[in-house]
């Protein structure tokens, strides 16, 4: 019995020693050991870093194709893919073909964070990140990696970060424009009350900040109604707003909430103008029973023009998108995705001309753009990290017959008081 024990013991020791030896020997040939510094110079003398090699530039997209923003995600992915195909057909950027690595996180933070760890070493920038919680969870990583990122979120709290660029206006600026639009065209005057239905979280909080500031300036009162993303029946909110005697309603929520609010308000005789933030409308709403009420009561403030607008750039894009994806609806996601991709392309071109395509070079090139105009809306200025890239907003209106379900009502302009608001913040 004893010899058996000793034998066993010896085998154990041998196994352990063997395993250790194996570990030492094998790490010698671990691919991680020899990788070293990624950045270097390509054959053409260009500084390159992660995501760029002699013949490709890789961009990443963390998107939602299976979660609550699946429709938006799909539009953006397809629009950006279309852009990449167009660019590649034209000879690419910096003599390299552009490739977009798409990862679907389904609006799940943990999946998104792992997906980021997966793609980050192999991409130079992220022209698409969907989901405010996702963006929030990745803020530090993105900053550390200096990965130029265009989030599909417009909260002012994302400003002030070198590597993160909110495109267009922020939610608060949109709402200031909305209040200005109401007072200018719908005859609201001092002492009136406006309702503001908003999502709990970043989006709603930032929008409310804007509406309260603008209402304070105009002598209006804001009756806020906080809702959850899961609330899709707003009857209670409509009753509460009615009791407050509101003369107009702002809404910063999702399309389902906008449809419920407008539909319920119309059926209960609360016929007041409603203005929504840009994410609060989707063309699919115009196929619901709420469509007539939406067409009669709703306006949308947005940094991007309507997809049906007659800007030559927009018309060209819509035509080629419809040709490439005949079955997909053309919504604002297509426009914003394509716009983001074009801006990214401009940054990459500028960085290439300056002699480098490392992540730092791309961020630097991006921050040097003071008048980036893609022909898809208003020009943007990226040089001041603390300021929204643009302060000009369009006012849109639902129209079931138009492409994308909306038409322009007012062209882009900076609302009165926005400058004052931004300098006071």
């Amino acid at each position, binding site marked *: 019995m004893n010899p058996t024990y000793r034998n066993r013991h010896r085998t154990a020791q041998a196994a352990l020693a063997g*395993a250790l030896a194996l570990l030492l020997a094998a790490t010698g040939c671990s691919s*991680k050991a020899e990788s070293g510094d990624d950045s270097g110079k390509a054959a053409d003398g260009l500084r390159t870093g992660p995501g760029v090699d002699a013949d490709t530039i890789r961009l990443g997209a963390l998107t939602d194709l299976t979660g609550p923003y699946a429709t938006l995600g799909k539009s953006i992915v397809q629009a950006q893919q279309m852009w990449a195909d167009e660019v590649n057909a034209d000879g690419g950027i910096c003599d390299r073909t552009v490739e977009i690595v*798409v990862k679907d996180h389904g609006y799940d933070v943990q999946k998104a964070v792992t*997906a980021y760890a997966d793609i980050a070493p192999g991409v130079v920038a992220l022209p698409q990140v969907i989901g405010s919680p996702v963006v929030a969870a990745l803020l530090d990583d993105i900053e550390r990696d200096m990965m130029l990122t265009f989030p599909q979120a417009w909260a002012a709290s994302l400003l002030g970060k070198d590597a993160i660029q909110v495109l267009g206006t922020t939610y608060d600026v949109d709402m200031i424009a909305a209040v200005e639009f109401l007072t200018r065209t719908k005859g609201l005057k001092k002492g009136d009350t406006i309702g503001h239905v908003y999502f709990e979280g*970043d989006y709603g909080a930032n929008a409310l900040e804007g509406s309260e500031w603008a209402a304070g300036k105009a002598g209006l009162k804001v009756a806020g109604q906080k809702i959850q993303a899961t609330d899709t029946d707003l009857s209670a909110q409509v009753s509460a707003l009615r009791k407050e005697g509101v003369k107009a309603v702002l809404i910063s929520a999702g399309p389902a909430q906008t449809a419920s609010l407008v539909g319920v308000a119309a059926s209960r005789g609360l016929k007041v103008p409603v203005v929504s933030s840009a994410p609060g409308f989707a063309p699919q709403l115009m196929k619901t029973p709420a469509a007539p009420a939406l067409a009669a009561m709703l306006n949308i403030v947005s940094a991007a023009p309507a997809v049906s607008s007659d800007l030559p750039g927009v018309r060209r894009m819509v035509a080629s998108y419809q040709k490439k994806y005949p079955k997909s609806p053309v919504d604002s996601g297509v426009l914003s995705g394509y716009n983001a991709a074009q801006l990214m392309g401009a940054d990459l071109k500028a960085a290439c001309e300056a002699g480098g395509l490392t992540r730092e070079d791309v961020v630097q090139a991006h921050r040097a753009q003071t008048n980036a105009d893609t022909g898809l809306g208003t020009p943007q200025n990226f040089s001041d990290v603390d300021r929204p890239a643009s302060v000009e907003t369009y006012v849109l209106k639902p129209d079931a017959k138009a492409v994308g379900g909306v038409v322009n009502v007012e062209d882009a302009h900076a609302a009165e008081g926005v400058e004052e608001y931004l300098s006071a913040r």
Partner: protein
Amino acid sequence: MSDRPLAALTRRRASLPLLAVVLCLPPFYLDAFWLRIGLFSMAAAIGAVGLALLSGTAGQLSLGHAFFLAVGAYGYAWLAGEPGPGLPPALAALLAVLLAGTAGGLFSPVAARVKGIYLGIATLALVFLGHHVLLTADSVTGGFNGRSVPPLTLGGFTFAGSDPELTVLGVPFGAEERLWFLGLALFAFTWCTARGLLRGRPGRALAALRDSETAAAVMGVDVARHRSAAFVVSSMYAGLAGVLLALAFRRVVPDYFSLALSVDYLAMIVIGGLGSVSGAVAGAVFVTALPLLMTRYADQLPLVTAPGSAEGTVGPTEAARYLYGAAIVLVLLYAPDGLHGLARRTRDRVRRRRTRTSAPDTAVPASPQPAAPARPKEHTP
């Protein structure tokens, strides 16, 4: 005959260091993506062990595990960070675990009063309450965008990408590689303490409580004290898991700590097998790593297309969901006592076959655990 248990013991003793060596290997080979999955799995394992103790062994259904994870994660981020007291991170981590324990202790009077599904509903309230507080208490939690998590430092060594720069055997050691070893250490600690608890008097007392409170009380088990102690200890494990999760995420956001997370943890202990530590660990790895890996590699499967390619096709995430769902159904169908029971039965079968070929008279399967296998008994009304 008498050398059988001894042989089993030495084999076990030999396999333990081997296992430890194998677990130390990944940082030398795998990239950050795999290491993150590993870290998430380790954190989930720690949390699941806590829940296994509470729901599996003590029979108290808890849907509030996400809340205690959040207390640990946010507690650490706040205590060690700015704004906040800015304590040394190691101390903050310890305090965060204690804080989670305190939260569990404060809730335990409720746990002592309601049982079964009612306790589940009561703990559900914690998740919603917690989520609301996380969103609104901006100065502490950072609101919707959450707050960044300061890296852990232990005696001048930082568990982050630099300070000091570290290269081991030619492999540069970044945050993930370092955290891997921290995770392993915490996991080993959890494993040992939880097994000790379960195999000792407290574990037997809790199992007795689960099976029949009256019988347990007659045997001299202090019912109220044991029930609340189970809650406190389980919350402390959850707090520890929260700290590790926070370190792995590097930023904590409220939306992660939702009801879905609690449900995931319940799934872990059910899939793993109620009432065992190794089962909880296996379940944690299953529930955490499998969906992530499937999402990553589903595009290699036939008929699965690249994300966002065309109308009416199955993308990797959808495919991963189908597969994951199928995997859960399969596990529950063919291993109703969880992965732990499945492993034990396979081991017994292998051993029986081996003994049948050598000496048929030694076919006495050595029970790997002194504690009787937990009966999946949901509630004692």
